[in-house]
């Protein structure tokens, strides 16, 4: 087989970094291979993908050095973020943009557009649909279609499903499999369940960008399990290897309670989500599940009083009517942690709410140091929050939630886009808080988390909580929270 892409003795360093990201890395990809690149976050997998395609240094100016390099003659690149890879407002216009770049005559465009969309299985009533109205999974399939317009012999996929829910992920990989059979495909991905049967070569990188394994799927997953676990890769069976390492016990004398009756959340004066009757007690971890757009996030926003609500909402005996009452009681962790950062350092970020309340400096310091240690952020305490890694940002945003020991913690997909290591770490921290008596309500798409951590599940369908049941698979079986009596 002939080579399609290769680089010999690559050296690459980002301006401002202390050390080289790659030191004399060599890699060769053969025509028709389906290659998966694995490694801890920050090891340079995406950078390598960009180098092999020529985006570095052509479009992204990073100084590189190599002895020899070969780019694929034609290639396409699908990026991670579905919201920042289109430049046109409508589906047909975006595809036409690529065709225009290739100088395709105007008369051939409509047919080509139809052909490309059906190739990736994107069925739309109208090709002139707004991209903004598509779901994440659909957007990524559109990205794939626009890349196919280039008729590439090599596809670079840079974590195309990292920001996509489970259903969308499945659809994206189905599309890839159907269009890329006879193409070379190079994939960077953390969630690999859906592609194992498609891949024929796995390359594993270490923290410092060195290749530690380069072999077929079975060999890598049998011999390098320990490394994969350490690097936070979602390999099959990762959950089974991960054991809860702490004792579980509920009830610490805290007894928080949440009572909801005929609770409704409104958006633009219309009822967007409703819950007839429910109550929760300390030590419960409620997973909110349901389809995209069913109203899961809306329920959380309503509970945080960020939307207009009606009905009975009682937290610890107090009737809640506005967000001010929730200031010390409840906390909401948003999907994008950056939105919640308001200061210039990690330390100030955690101390913010205490400083605002003019607590004693010694008390503040004690509390902040404690949290920095628990969340593994002590070394980073003087960094700007924006300079942290994705996992650290997420941990910091949860740390700010814990400062005041909230009685009710609302989380919107807190493990989204995180590697397995960060996910486990975060879940352990939440579990600890649950044991301390916090009521956790969390939106998640991850069925493993629901299965292993949630004590109770709320299923939302079409803006209504339709099911409320106790989780039977729950590992910490000792809790017998008697919430059933309320229903």
């Amino acid at each position, binding site marked *: 087989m002939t080579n399609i892409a290769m680089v010999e003795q690559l050296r690459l360093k980002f301006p401002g970094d202390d050390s080289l990201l790659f030191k004399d890395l060599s890699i060769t990809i053969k025509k028709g291979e389906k290659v998966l690149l694995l490694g801890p976050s920050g090891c340079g997998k995406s950078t390598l993908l960009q180098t092999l395609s020529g985006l570095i240094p052509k479009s992204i100016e990073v100084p590189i050095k190599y002895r020899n390099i070969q780019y694929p003659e034609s290639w396409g*690149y699908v990026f991670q973020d579905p*919201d920042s890879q289109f430049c046109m*407002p409508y589906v047909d216009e975006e595809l036409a*943009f690529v065709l225009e*770049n290739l100088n395709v005559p105007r008369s051939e465009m409509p047919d080509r557009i139809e052909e490309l969309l059906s190739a990736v299985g994107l069925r739309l009533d109208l090709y002139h649909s707004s991209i903004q109205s598509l779901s994440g999974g659909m957007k990524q399939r559109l990205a794939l279609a*626009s890349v196919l317009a280039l008729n590439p012999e090599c596809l670079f996929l840079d974590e195309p499903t990292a920001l996509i829910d489970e259903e969308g992920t499945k659809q994206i990989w189905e599309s890839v499999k159907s269009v890329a059979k006879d193409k070379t495909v190079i994939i960077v991905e953390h969630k690999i369940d859906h592609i194992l049967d498609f891949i024929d070569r796995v390359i594993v990188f270490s923290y410092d960008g060195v290749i530690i394994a380069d072999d077929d799927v079975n060999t890598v997953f049998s011999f390098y399990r320990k490394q994969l676990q350490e690097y936070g890769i979602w390999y099959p069976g990762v959950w089974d290897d991960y054991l809860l390492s702490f004792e579980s016990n509920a009830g610490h004398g805290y007894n928080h309670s949440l009572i909801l009756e005929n609770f409704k959340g409104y958006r633009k004066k219309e009822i967007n989500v409703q819950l007839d009757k429910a109550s929760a007690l300390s030590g419960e971890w409620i997973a909110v599940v349901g389809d995209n757009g069913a109203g899961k996030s809306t329920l959380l926003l309503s509970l945080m009083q960020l939307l207009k609500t009606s009905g009975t909402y009682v937290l610890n005996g107090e009737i809640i009517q506005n967000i001010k009452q929730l200031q010390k009681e409840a906390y*909401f962790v948003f999907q994008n942690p950056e939105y*919640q950062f*308001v200061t210039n350092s990690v330390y100030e970020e955690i101390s913010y709410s205490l400083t605002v309340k003019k607590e004693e400096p010694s008390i503040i310091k004690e509390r902040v140091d404690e949290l920095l240690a628990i969340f593994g952020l002590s070394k980073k305490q003087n960094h700007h929050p924006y300079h942290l890694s994705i996992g650290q940002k997420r941990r910091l945003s949860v740390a700010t939630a814990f400062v005041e020991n909230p009685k009710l913690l609302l989380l919107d997909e807190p493990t989204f886009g995180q590697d397995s290591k960060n996910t486990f770490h975060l879940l352990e921290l939440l579990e600890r808080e649950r044991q301390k008596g916090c009521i956790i309500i969390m939106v998640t798409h991850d069925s493993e988390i629901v299965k292993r951590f949630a004590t109770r599940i709320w299923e939302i369908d079409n803006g209504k909580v339709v099911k409320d049941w106790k989780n039977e698979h729950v590992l910490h079986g000792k809790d017998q929270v008697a919430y059933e009596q309320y229903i």
Partner: protein
Amino acid sequence: MNNTFDFRETWLHKINPSLKLLTMIFLFILVIFIHNLNQMILFTIMTMILFVFFTGHPYKRILLFSIPFLFIFISTTTSMIFFGKGDTTILRWGLVHVTEESLFRGIHLGFRALTYALLGLTFALTTRPVYLFYSMMQQLKLNPKYSYSFMAGIRLMPIMIEEFQHIRSAQKVRGVRTGAGMNGLFHLFKFTSIPLLSQCIRRAFRIAVAMEAKRFDYSKERTFYYKIGFSKVDVVFVGYFVVLTGLSFYLAQEFPFFPVTDVRD
């Protein structure tokens, strides 16, 4: 511009966008040289007809958009009327000194401001940005580099608005209180602009890379998905202004309703 809401397509939408833009710019300049009050009023009525009846938007929306311009009209008119210079006094009350000259000058200025608003709004309400840039690339030979950057930028705007709302909510949760008044506005700006901008710069950079990954190369020859040319409506549009401007000149000369031919005198 009209990316998000529904409207009926009218002949104004079908005009070649570049031609429409150039005509508007020409009219903007022309209006500066109209000093005859009668003529100004007739000219305003003429643009108002287009705005009210032919933009294809529901009347409720048109009324809504008119509110700020009515405000501009009243504020420019009154400030000129009350505090302008002149010899023939009509009313004097403290600082307020209304003269015949300032009265006419004020009304004239108000109508001029209104005309600008009407022309601008008519253009914005009847032109899809994407068509405008396609037309500018085809008729005015605008470099694709700029047109596609602008179009990508326009796509970012609804995303930014959504993000702004998220940031506001997130900060309410953190207990950030911005308070009222100028001080509050400053705090709001301080707390939201940095996350918003950092996100935007990152997005813009990623879009740029994605565009190049899709082989966007502004120096190369390219085809166009939308072929934008000229049609009969273009003649109608230009004709409308030529005929009615002429008519307004004639009527202002022959049948003036104010005895003023030049407000500067």
